[in-house]
C-alpha cells in the first residue's frame, strides 16, 4: 500500500509537470507575451515612458529570460502558491482561483451526486428486468441522453425550466446554501445527463454479468428477496467499470463546465478559462490548466485506491 501510494505520487507529479510544460510552452510560443500584456503599447507606442512600462512588464513576467528559465521560475512560484498576476485586470491569479475554484468544485460534485443518485437505481432496475421491454426502452432513453450535446441541452433546459415555467432562477445566486443549490440545479443536471446515461449503461451491463455468477444463485437459495440480492450481493462487485469511468469523466465534466458555466453565468473556472482565453490572459489559463490537471490526477488516484476497497482481492502494489 505504502509502495503503491509512493509510486503513484511520483507518477502524478510527472503527469502534472508534463502538462505544465506543454501548456506553458504552447502559450509562450503563441504570439508575443508582451503584446498580450500591454496590448498595442507593446510595440507601436514609442517614448521613454512606454519603455519604462515595457521594461517593468518584462521584469515582472521574466520575459527577458530564456524559455526554460522562465518556466522554472513560474513553476517555483506556483509551487509556493503564487500563480502570478492576471494580464487582464492585474489581480493575482490565486485570488481569482480562490473565488472561482470552489464554485466549480461544487458544481462538479453536484453533477456527480445527481448522476449517481439516478443512474445506480436505474441500472439496478433495468438489470433486474434485463432484455425485457422496460429494459429495452431504458436503453433507448439512455442512448438519447448520451446523444444530446451539452450546449443544446443547456439551451433547452434553461428555456423550459427557467424562462418558460419559471421554476428555477435565471441568474446565479449564492447568498445562501439553499439558493446556491437551487440555482445550480439546472447546470448540474445538464452536466449530469450524459454521466447518468454512461453510468447506467456500464453498471447495467456489469450487473447482468454478475447476476450470472454462482454466488448470486447461492444468495437466492438463501431465500433473500430480489432487491436484497441486487443491492447486497450484485452491486459492489459490479462497480468497477463505473468507477473507472467516474474518474475519467471528471475530465469531461471540466470540459462541460466551460459551456455550462458560461451559459448559466456561473463564476467558476470553466467560465474563467473561457474569458481568459479570449483575452489571451496566459497566467490565468495556465493556472486553471494546472489546477484542472491536479484535480483530475487526484480523483483518479482515489479511484485506484477505491478499487481495493471494492474488492479485497485487489492488491495495491507499486
Amino acid at each position, binding site marked *: 500500500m505504502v509502495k503503491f501510494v509512493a509510486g503513484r505520487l511520483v507518477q502524478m507529479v510527472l503527469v502534472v509537470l508534463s502538462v505544465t510544460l506543454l501548456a506553458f510552452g504552447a502559450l509562450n510560443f503563441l504570439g508575443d507575451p508582451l503584446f498580450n500584456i500591454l496590448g498595442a503599447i507593446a510595440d507601436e507606442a514609442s517614448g521613454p515612458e512606454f519603455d519604462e512600462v515595457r521594461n517593468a512588464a518584462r521584469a515582472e513576467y521574466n520575459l527577458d529570460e530564456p524559455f526554460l528559465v522562465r518556466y522554472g521560475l513560474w513553476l517555483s512560484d506556483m509551487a509556493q502558491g503564487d500563480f502570478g498576476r492576471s494580464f487582464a485586470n492585474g489581480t493575482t491569479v490565486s485570488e481569482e482561483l480562490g473565488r472561482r475554484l470552489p464554485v466549480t468544485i461544487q458544481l462538479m460534485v453536484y453533477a456527480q451526486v445527481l448522476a449517481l443518485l439516478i443512474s445506480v437505481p436505474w441500472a439496478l432496475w433495468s438489470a433486474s428486468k434485463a432484455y425485457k421491454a422496460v429494459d429495452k426502452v431504458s436503453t433507448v432513453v439512455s442512448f438519447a441522453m448520451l446523444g444530446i450535446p451539452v450546449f443544446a441541452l443547456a439551451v433547452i433546459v434553461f428555456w423550459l425550466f427557467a424562462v418558460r415555467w419559471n421554476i428555477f432562477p435565471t441568474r446565479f445566486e449564492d447568498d445562501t446554501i439553499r439558493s446556491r443549490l437551487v440555482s445550480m440545479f439546472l447546470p448540474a443536471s445538464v452536466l449530469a445527463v450524459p454521466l447518468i446515461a454512461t453510468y447506467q449503461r456500464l453498471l447495467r451491463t456489469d450487473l447482468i454479468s454478475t447476476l450470472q455468477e454462482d454466488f448470486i*444463485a*447461492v444468495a437466492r437459495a438463501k431465500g433473500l428477496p430480489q432487491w436484497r440480492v441486487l443491492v447486497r450481493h450484485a452491486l459492489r*462487485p459490479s462497480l468497477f467499470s463505473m468507477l473507472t469511468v467516474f474518474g475519467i469523466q471528471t475530465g469531461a465534466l471540466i470540459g462541460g463546465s466551460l459551456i455550462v458555466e458560461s451559459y448559466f453565468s456561473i463564476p467558476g473556472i470553466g467560465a474563467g478559462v473561457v474569458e481568459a482565453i479570449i483575452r489571451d490572459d496566459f497566467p490565468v489559463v495556465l493556472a486553471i490548466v494546472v489546477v484542472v490537471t491536479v484535480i483530475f490526477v487526484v480523483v483518479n488516484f482515489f479511484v485506484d485506491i477505491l478499487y481495493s476497497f471494492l474488492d*479485497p482481492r485487489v492488491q495495491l502494489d507499486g
Partner: protein
Amino acid sequence: MALLEVRDLAVTFSTANGPVYAVSDVSFSVERGAAIGIVGESGSGKSVTVKSLMNLLPSSAKIDGTATYDGLDVFNLEPSRRKHFYGVDVAMVFQNPMTSLNPVKRIGEQLTEGMRFHRKLSRGDATARAVELLDLVRIPDPAKRLRQYPHELSGGMRQRVVIAMALANDPALLIADEPTTALDVTVQRDILDLLDGLRRDLDMALVLITHDLGVVRDRTDDIVVMYGGRVMEGAPTEDLFANTVHPYTHALRSSIPNMSMPRGTRLSPIPGSPPDLAIAPTSCPFAPRCTHVTDACRTALPATKTLDSGASGHTYACVNPQLGEV
C-alpha cells in the same frame, strides 16, 4: 407421507432455436431424514431438476408437474410462505465452492446473513451461531475465519463454509448439487463424509446429485438414474446395485474404476454423446448409444415398469431390461 414428492416434473426452456426439453416425466420422493442420490452425466437434467425446486431457473423455463414439500405445493407457494421456504426449509449446496461465495464479503457476513434475515437474530447471536456452524463443518479456528474473505480459504474450506451457510436455518432438506466435482480428489471424500454425517446428526433429508455412482453407493437410501432429462432407473440403493436392470445403469457402472477389478481391466466408456434435448423424444433417449437396443426402443418411449411387482420399489424405463451381470 414423504417429505418431498416430485411427480411428472417437466422443464422446458424456450430458446431462440425453439424449445429445449431439459427434464421430462421425472418422479421421485424423499423421506424425512433420508438420502437420495440423483445420478447422471452432464446434460441429464439432474441439476435442472433441483434448480426448478429451488426457484433458480431463468424465466425462460416452463415447469410442469408437481412438487409437494410437507403437503405444500412448491411451485405455487404463497408469498408469505415462500419467504420462509428457501434457505429455511430447503437449502442448497452448489457445485463450485470457488464461485459460490461472494468474493467481496467476509465469511462472517455471508454466514450470518440468512439467519439475520429469516430469524431476525441480532448480530451477536448470529455470530455465535456462525461459530457453531463452522465448528460443525469442522473448520478450525472459526472466529478467525469469520473475519476472512473467501479468497483466503482453500477450495475444501470454502465448500465447508457453503455447507455451513446452507445449514444456518436448520433445513429439513438439503440439496447438494455435485458438491465435490470441483474439489481435489483428496478433499472430495472428506466433504461427502461430512455431508453424510451431518445428515444423520441433524436428521435432515439429503438430495445428493452426482455423475459418479460410487459417490452415492454408500451414502444414500435411494438412487435415481437420469439420462436425457428422463429417469432411467430408480431403486433403493442396495437393490439398484444388486439387481441393476437398465442398460444405461450397467454402462455407468462399468465405466467407473473399482478397486476389486483385476489389474489390467479396461474401463468401458459409453460410446456416443448425450442426446440433443432440442428434439422432443419419441423413443428411448439412450437407444442410439445402447448395446442392447431393439427395434421397439426406437419407435416409442419406454413405459416405466416395476421390478418384482413393485415390492422393492425398483422401477425402470426400458423395453429390453438386462438383469444381472452384463
